[in-house]
């Protein structure tokens, strides 16, 4: 059943990269939105949450316009580095990252807003700089909530279909992820392949969701 494991490996690679990127970006932006007061804060939050509600095809279209060879970012990347993202697995990573980003952002912002600012003040008075306050107080108090969001984002990235298909296409072995492979298998009437792919996808997602569920009720002693 080699034809099932190759898209699974690719899906895990794409979801892994997108989750790593979202972890860094989501924590940074989540902290910013939770702790800084500035004009347009809620507007930024709303724009960054859009991928959760927009149809993936619309996101895929936006991405094509932006990172396609004639798009502003795509043209710059091609002229400067000779890099083309369309129909590559890196393009699939960008699509999955965008779609799953709100899940990390929402979780991170809520988790940071739940950290008592008094504790951070206590750490400052005790001689810590802002980086140490973050790594020794803020993050340890918030990480359960963040991790729950990160796992959901991983599951979402693993199942990404619409935007991925539009940006990365469906090249077997190169950009054909699990969810795209299911679609292709069904279209080609290969029901046995589709069955295996669907089963693998379902099991992977259940494992991820169970892990996320265990982390959601923060068991940090209060």
């Amino acid at each position, binding site marked *: 059943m080699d034809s099932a494991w190759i898209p699974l490996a690719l899906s895990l690679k794409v979801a892994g990269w997108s989750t790593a990127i979202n972890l860094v970006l989501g924590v940074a932006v989540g902290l910013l939105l939770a702790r800084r007061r500035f004009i347009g804060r809620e507007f930024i939050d709303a724009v960054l949450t859009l991928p959760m509600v927009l149809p993936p095809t619309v996101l895929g279209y936006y991405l094509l316009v932006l990172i396609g060879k004639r798009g502003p970012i795509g043209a710059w990347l091609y002229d400067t580095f000779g890099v083309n993202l369309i129909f590559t697995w890196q393009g699939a990573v960008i699509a999955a990252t965008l779609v799953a980003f709100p899940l990390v952002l929402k979780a991170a912002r809520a988790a940071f807003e739940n950290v*008592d600012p*008094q*504790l951070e*003040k*206590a*750490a*400052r*008075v*005790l*001689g*810590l*700089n802002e*980086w*140490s306050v973050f*790594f*020794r*107080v803020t993050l*340890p*108090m918030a990480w359960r909530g963040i991790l729950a969001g990160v796992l959901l984002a991983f599951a979402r990235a693993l199942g990404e279909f619409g935007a991925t298909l539009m940006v990365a296409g469906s090249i077997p072995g190169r950009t054909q992820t699990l969810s795209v492979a299911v679609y292709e298998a069904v279209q080609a009437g290969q029901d046995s392949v589709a069955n295996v792919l669907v089963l693998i996808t379902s099991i992977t997602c259940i494992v991820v969701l169970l892990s996320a569920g265990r982390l959601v009720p923060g068991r*940090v*002693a*209060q």
Partner: protein
Amino acid sequence: MSFDVDIAKTVSSGKRHFHLRVKFQSTARRTAIYGPSGAGKSLTLQALAGLLTPDTGRIAFDGKLLFDRDSKVDVPARERRFGYLFQDYALFPHLNVRQNIAFGLTAGLRNPSAQVGGEAVDRWLRTFELTNVAAQHPSELSGGQRQRTALARALVNSPRALLLDEPFSALDSELRDRMRSELDDLLQRIDIPMLMITHDKDDLARFGEATLYLRDGLISERPAPSLLRASPSSLHAV
């Protein structure tokens, strides 16, 4: 110790504005700032510690400038070296008693280990009779133990002065009296200057070597007539 404070700060919440205008000098070893809830006591204490930036004015401690708007001096909280006891203690819930006490001994990116030792930590654990609960987390402690842990955490770095935010308000009345004597003894033993804010008159007799009165953001050296008449319990509602 000597505090030389002359600051102003306006805090806004929605359409409400609160003006704090605090000016005092104190050379007493024990200073108490007394006032009802909402008078601006906590804001004052936070400004002294560097946790709140005043709009204008200056703060000096023992002749050293900590904040001066005009010459753009603002020593960050981490360098002011004050011990600060928060009203609800603000113990780190993810760390055990030992780690909480040792917290300020290292300034790096990592918390002390669960078995962190050292002469200072062990001495403060003994002083406050916390050795038996050293491995427990704050949620497992009694009210008195929490306060002792918070005091040990504030004192472990040998601060220049102790700032206390309503230190006994979180305790029931019986425990309050006991912790008052404990703190009194401790201050005499280690001879550290302190500044306390309180809305409890009973604190003044013991800790108010010098007492300042704060009301509606303004400080004075004499209690306002209404404060003299009012009983402490009726002040809560102000």
